[in-house]
C-alpha cells in the first residue's frame, strides 16, 4: 500500500470540503473493495477520507412507504433490520447474500453503489425497486445513477448520503454466485411496484440493466411461466473465465424464474 494522508471528518459538509481541498483524495466507506485495491497498489490516492465517523450517514428509517437507508449502513445491519424485513424483505434477503459475514459486517450501501462493480448485488436492488439515491446536493433516480462499468452519475466531490427504497407490492432477489468470490455471475431483482413490474439484472453486463420484455410479460402475469417463452440476447453481456456471454444470457432467465418462484 502506498502512503496517504488520513482524515476522519465528523460531518458530510466537512467531508465535501476535504474532497474539494484534496483533489486526489478517495473516500473510504466500508473498505471491502477499496482496502484490497490499495493493498494491490491499484490506487494511489494522496489522501483517504474515512466516512466512518459521520453519524448522519448511519441509520435506517421508515418514511411513509419508503425505507431510507444511510450510506454508511452495513449490509449486515440491512439484513437484520426489523423495518427492512417487514417493509421490503427482498432487500434484507439481498443484503444477506453479499459476500460473507465479515464482509457484510463492514461493507456499506453507499460504498457498494458508488463503486458500481458490475457484479455487485446492490445495483440490482436500487434499480429493481426504483429507488432514489440521495447525495449531499441532489436526488438521483436509481436507474440514472448507474451509468456504466464502475461509472456512476456522481459528480466530482459528490457524496452519496442515503438511498430511499419504495416499498413494493411484491419483490424477490435471486443470484447465481461465483463460488469463489461470492459475487453475482447473474443476479436478478424482480419487483411488482406501484409503477409497474421491474426486472433488474446485475452481474451479467457491464452495468445493471432492466429487461423490458420480461417486465411486459410479467405485467399481465407475475409468475415464472410468463417468461418461459422469452430469451435474452447475449450480445454485450460479460464473458470471462467463469462464464461466456451465452451462458450468462441463459442464466438470466433461470435466475429470474427462481426469483419469481420465491414470491410464489
Amino acid at each position, binding site marked *: *500500500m*502506498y*502512503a*496517504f*494522508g*488520513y482524515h*476522519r471528518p465528523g460531518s458530510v459538509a466537512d467531508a465535501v470540503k476535504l474532497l474539494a481541498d484534496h483533489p486526489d483524495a478517495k473516500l*473510504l466507506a466500508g*473498505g*471491502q473493495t477499496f*482496502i*484490497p485495491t*490499495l*493493498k494491490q497498489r491499484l490506487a494511489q490516492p494522496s489522501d*483517504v477520507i*474515512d466516512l*466512518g465517523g459521520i453519524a448522519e450517514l448511519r441509520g435506517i428509517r421508515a418514511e411513509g412507504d419508503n425505507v431510507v437507508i444511510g450510506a454508511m449502513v452495513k449490509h*449486515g445491519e440491512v439484513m*437484520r433490520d426489523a423495518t427492512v424485513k417487514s417493509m421490503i424483505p427482498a432487500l434484507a434477503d439481498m443484503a444477506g447474500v453479499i*459476500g*460473507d*459475514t*465479515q*464482509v457484510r*459486517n*463492514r461493507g456499506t450501501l453507499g460504498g457498494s453503489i458508488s463503486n458500481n462493480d458490475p457484479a455487485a448485488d446492490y445495483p440490482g436492488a436500487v434499480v429493481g425497486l426504483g429507488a432514489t439515491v440521495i447525495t449531499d446536493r441532489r436526488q438521483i433516480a436509481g436507474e440514472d445513477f448507474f451509468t456504466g462499468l464502475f461509472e456512476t452519475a456522481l459528480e466530482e466531490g459528490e457524496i452519496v448520503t442515503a438511498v430511499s427504497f419504495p416499498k413494493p407490492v411484491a419483490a424477490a432477489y435471486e443470484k447465481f454466485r461465483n463460488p*469463489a468470490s*461470492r459475487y453475482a455471475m447473474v443476479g436478478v431483482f424482480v419487483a411488482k411496484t406501484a409503477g409497474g413490474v421491474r426486472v433488474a439484472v446485475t452481474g451479467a453486463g457491464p452495468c445493471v440493466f432492466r429487461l423490458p420484455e420480461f417486465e411486459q410479460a410479467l405485467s399481465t402475469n407475475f409468475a415464472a411461466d410468463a417468461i418461459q417463452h422469452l430469451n435474452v440476447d447475449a450480445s454485450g453481456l460479460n464473458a470471462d473465465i467463469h462464464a461466456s456471454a451465452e451462458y450468462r444470457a441463459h442464466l438470466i432467465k433461470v435466475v429470474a424464474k427462481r426469483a419469481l418462484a420465491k414470491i410464489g
Partner: protein
Amino acid sequence: MTSVTMTVNGKAVTKDIEPRMLLSTFLREELGLTGTHVGCDTSQCGCCVVHVDGDSVKSCTALAVQFDGASVTTIEGLGQNGTLHPMQEAFRENHGLQCGFCTTGMIMSSVDLVKKAKEQGITIDEHYVREGLEGNICRCTGYHNIVKAVIAGAQAM
C-alpha cells in the same frame, strides 16, 4: 503518523502509526498478539477474524486508524481469568482442527455467528453453521469436526 487509541482485549492502547497500517499488522506487530493469523491477506480465508465492537471483521481488510475509540477482541481476549471460552473448549473437545492455522479465525467467527443467531432467534443447526462460516476456509478441509464443535459450543454459550 497518526495517533490511534483503542481498547484491545479490555486494555486501552495508544500508538502512533502510519495510516496505511492494517488492523492485522497493528495487532500482530505493534501489540504482539500473534494469535490473529494472516493466511491469504486477500479477505478470503478468515484466519485474521477479530471482533470490533462485537462484530466479526477480517482484520487484513481494515485499517487500524479506522478503529480509533473502538473495542477490539482477539483470540487472546476471548477466555476469561485463565479459563477457555466455551467455544474454544468445544473446539478442543471435538477436535475442531487439524493443523490449527485457521482455528483462531474459525473460533472468532463462530462466537459472533452464535451470538447473532441467539439475538435473532435463529436455530443453530449444521446448515446455519456451514453457511455462516463461509468466510472461513480450512485448507486441511477439516470442516466436519469444526461444525460439530460450533454446534456444541453454541449449546455451552
